[in-house]
């Protein structure tokens, strides 16, 4: 290591190819992948699921499992070739010079070991540090990752910490031996946005403090922009474009990168005038990749006989430093051509009130023990005084982080649970205390739901067609089997799936296709109100756009009321007419999309907006990082639910935030905010986003 020169790259991957060997065939996972990470540099690896980005990370750790093998190329770490090392040498490097942080924090921590012992283990093994010294170092790092009360944390078990705290511990553990390279594999995907913002901030600061290089793997372009200096975009096992963040974001030179940017809801997108543009087609399976350019079949600049003729090498882009693209035609394409305006839609007309909730509450009683009644019962206030209307043809977004009560709200509305108090009117019918078994078929079929997890939404042992037909049977659609069969095929047309899919099993479908079937099933009985519970959050960005557009299309056609539950504010801003922000079971802000996304904000909305990563270099954002975690609904703070994390609390005289629940105030034009802040302070709030002058 003494021979290593600081001006040389820390990590240099050259022409790396990785294959997985199964009984049937060799499956190439990564082909001809090259990248260089310099000291102190953060490299972002972006791509859709299955593009091989995690495989690259595992190859750097030389942890490809039994079936995976590096079939070509080199991985040089500080000038030494990792592919030629034996297990003993690798053990020296792993965890001490290269550390990895995984997606699921709980899975990275040993649940049976105290935090302090787990952290101290690292330097004790790698540097033979005495235990007392190692624990002191652990304590210092816990303070470094900004966890309160390090002494308590040292003695805690992982399950006693929240997800965000756990991920901070994992980061602390990775930094224990001051690694030269940190690999982060989707480190914040399992966390809420406000918690994510905190972690991103932390990672940035720590990298600057320790001078660590990073390989940051993510599917979220906005997040990569906030963390990284350089970016490599991967598609189907190949790096398609690499360069500095600003070069790639502003002067992209690969059609896939461009298509990716056009499919994410940037603040400039608008559902009526500039709709999202989904990438047509599907991701190729690893053993069915096309000849020539992998992206060819889905590329709008594709030229037959040229793009599918030979393997395409990476070529440097003139004028930029270290900016390469794997496209034959990148200097022919007019990259500034305006986006071909798709079908323009008028903003849909919003009709009568179809659903109205008034002061709905839902409390759960949690008994101390389920076997023997008695003892302390605790009350979980999942929903508190929810009041709002939803109109025909309207999209109402319900936004909030996990634990804010949005799923409970959906359950109450669907009738899976009954409300503790309050009124729910659905088409002039009181349904608040009618569980779903007692609702009539009409009510049930007009109020349907689209679920979050595409891999869970369909019964894996029933054909797609059968599942839709079943919904038709239950809703009493069609008089005979043949009629229902016909209607099922029409529903498949509606969600733009080929009719052959009727006989397929769900496991033969991709995530986006399954989600379409879920939508078809929800619309089987001509639903009037559809609750979409994070319908696209588990999908890849290019598919997200397509599914979102589909929902919008159906809504325009059927004049459906869409209740769109989400934590992703970019997509909410793109498609919703009105937004309802929830925190700890309370509605904290309610208004039209423009009202909610512009000042005055509720302090929580402001923080939420600032936490959302935006993949646009022109937008400048105020960084507001919330301290701490969401309080438990079992034990909510007194007064305003948000007071424990609010940065505006000092502006309210008399400390009433801590004692009094703020009323829901109307700021005019139906914009309601639950906050004690005076009208003047609210009016003085600055916008979170500003578009930088070009």
């Amino acid at each position, binding site marked *: 290591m003494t021979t290593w020169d600081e001006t040389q790259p820390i990590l240099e991957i050259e022409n790396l190819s990785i294959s997985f060997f199964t009984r049937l065939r060799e499956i190439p996972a990564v082909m001809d992948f090259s990248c260089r990470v310099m000291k102190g540099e953060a490299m972002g690896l972006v791509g859709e699921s299955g593009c091989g980005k995690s495989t690259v990370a595992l190859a750097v750790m030389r942890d490809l499992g039994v079936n995976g093998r590096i079939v070509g190329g080199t991985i040089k770490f500080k000038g030494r070739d990792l592919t030629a090392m034996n297990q003993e040498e690798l053990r020296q490097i792993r965890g001490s010079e290269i550390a990895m942080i995984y997606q699921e924090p709980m899975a990275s921590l040993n649940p049976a070991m105290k935090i302090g012992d787990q952290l101290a283990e690292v330097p004790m093994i790698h540097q033979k540090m005495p235990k007392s010294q190692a624990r002191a170092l652990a304590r210092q790092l816990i303070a470094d990752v900004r966890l309160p009360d390090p002494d308590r944390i040292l003695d805690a078990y992982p399950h006693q910490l929240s997800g965000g705290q756990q991920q901070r511990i994992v980061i602390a553990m990775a930094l224990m031996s001051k690694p030269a390279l940190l690999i982060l594999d989707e480190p914040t995907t399992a966390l809420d946005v406000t918690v994510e913002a905190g972690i991103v901030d932390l990672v940035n600061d720590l990298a600057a403090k320790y001078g660590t290089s990073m390989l940051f793997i993510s599917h979220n372009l906005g997040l990569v922009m906030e963390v990284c200096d350089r970016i490599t975009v991967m598609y189907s096992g190949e790096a398609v474009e690499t360069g500095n963040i600003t070069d790639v974001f502003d002067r992209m030179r690969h059609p896939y990168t461009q298509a990716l940017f056009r499919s994410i809801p940037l603040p400039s997108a608008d559902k009526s005038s500039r709709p999202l543009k989904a990438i047509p087609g599907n991701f190729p399976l690893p053993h069915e990749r096309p000849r020539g350019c992998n992206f060819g079949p889905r590329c709008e600049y594709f030229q037959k006989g040229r793009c599918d003729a030979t393997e395409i090498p990476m070529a440097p882009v003139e004028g930029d430093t270290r900016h390469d693209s794997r496209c034959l035609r990148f200097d022919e394409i007019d990259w500034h051509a305006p986006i071909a305006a798709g079908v323009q839609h008028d903003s849909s007309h919003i009709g009568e009130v179809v659903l109205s909730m008034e002061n709905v509450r839902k409390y759960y009683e949690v008994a101390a023990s389920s076997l023997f009644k008695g003892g302390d019962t605790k009350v979980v206030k999942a929903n508190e005084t929810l009041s709002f209307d939803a109109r025909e043809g309207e999209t109402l977004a319900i936004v909030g982080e996990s634990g804010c009560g949005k799923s409970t709200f959906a359950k109450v509305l669907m009738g899976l649970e009954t409300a503790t108090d309050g009124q729910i009117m659905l088409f002039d019918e009181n349904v608040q205390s009618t569980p779903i078994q007692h609702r009539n078929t009409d009510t049930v079929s007009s109020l349907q*739901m689209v*679920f979050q997890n595409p891999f869970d*939404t*369909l019964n894996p*042992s029933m054909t797609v067609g059968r599942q839709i037909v079943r919904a038709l049977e239950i809703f009493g659609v069609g008089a005979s089997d043949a009629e229902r069969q016909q209607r099922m095929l029409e529903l498949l047309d509606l969600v733009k799936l080929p009719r052959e899919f009727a006989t397929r099993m769900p*496991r033969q479908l991709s995530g986006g296709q399954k989600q379409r079937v879920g939508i078809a099933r929800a619309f089987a009985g001509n639903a009037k109100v559809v609750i979409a519970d994070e319908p696209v959050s588990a999908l890849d960005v290019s598919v997200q756009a397509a599914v979102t557009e589909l929902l919008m299309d159906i809504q325009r056609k059927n004049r459906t009321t869409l209740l769109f539950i989400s934590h992703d504010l970019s997509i909410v801003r793109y498609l919703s007419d009105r937004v309802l922000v929830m925190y700890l079971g309370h509605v904290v802000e309610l208004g039209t999309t423009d009202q909610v996304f512009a000042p005055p904000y509720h302090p929580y909305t402001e923080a939420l907006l600032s936490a959302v990563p935006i993949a646009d270099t022109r937008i400048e954002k105020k960084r507001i990082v919330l301290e701490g975690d969401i309080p438990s609904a079992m034990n909510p703070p007194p007064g305003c639910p948000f007071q424990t994390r609010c940065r505006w609390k000092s502006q309210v005289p008399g400390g009433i935030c801590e004692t009094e629940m703020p009323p829901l105030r109307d700021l005019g034009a139906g914009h309601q905010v639950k906050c004690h802040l005076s009208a003047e302070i609210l009016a003085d709030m600055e916008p979170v986003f500003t578009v930088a002058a070009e």
Partner: protein
Amino acid sequence: MEPLSWFEILARIAQQLLPVWVALVLTYALSIRFKRRFGLYGKLFDSTVGMIGFGIVMFWLFVALFANFIVTHDSLSQVSGMRNAVPGSALRDPRDLYPYYLLGGDSLARDVFSRMVMGAREVLRIAPFAAMISFMIGITLGLPAGYFAGKLDTGLTFLANLVLAFPVILLFFLLVAPEIQDTPIPRVMAGILFLVPILFITVLLNARFFTQPAKRNLYVGIVLAVGAWAYLGLVFNADPVGLWSMSPNLLNVFVAVVFVNAPTVFRIVRGITLDIKTRDYVAAAQTRGEGPWYIMLWEILPNARGPLIVDFCLRIGYTTILLGTLGFFGLGVSPESPDWGSTINAGRRLLTVYPHPALVPALSLMSLVLGLNLLADGLREESLRD
């Protein structure tokens, strides 16, 4: 006559099993030829493990089916001078009998080979059926326990634990005790036991077809008619046609097998149900207003099949061994029954001197259980693949 050499013994056994070979070859030829049309059964022929397992199971099934053509002697008749005869021994005075005891004779001078063949018939007649009834009871109780949870679950789980904690041997003694045999308890138990499958299938079909009353009435009607007919015969021994009947001893076997197996099946099903009921497709069924039994039987149960199929195959093996244990108490099958469990038990006493009377059924049992396991593995593997 000289005793046969091992090679001759194997050749003669293979010759006796000729109908089995023919049937196996036919089955495989047809199945592989048309495997794309048979769904999961056809997919089984894509997996080597599954094919081997299926082959072994089918082998025993055909042995049981063609037992009458395969046996060389009557499984109960004794031939003088053949007590504990070694495999391949020639009969002293064959007359019109088959001239050899291919796998030797047992302590009562009966032909071990013929008993093994007839034993296959006994085993395959009782074990799968008994295991199936245990499964239906376990499933019928396990699904609601897991799905509704709460007090019902607490109660049923407690009951299952109670049965599991009850000493099985004591239970067997109680079942054979004349004081119990004379009471209506065995009949009542049988009444409940055989009622469950009928209810199970009725509910299953009703939940699926209640939206189409005509179809529902037809299917449920057929099930109820056949069910009532079988029920009359099995429980009250009053089948007018005489097709269904069951000796009181066999009834005891069923009661015992169900008592031993059902609580375990209950726990497996309950556990899987607790997991599967949190899936979105269950929520989707709830939000379109499906009844609880449809959700349990059509949304949850099919997705629990993996572990259940594997466990079912294993449990047929256990049941076979259990039959032997029960025979030890003079329970269930008649003392001279050729079923493998009882035969192993009978051969146990002279095991060190004459191993073959016990070894032959033991190996048969082992191969059947192995075949069932391989089949289960193959089914599980292929059902998850495209």
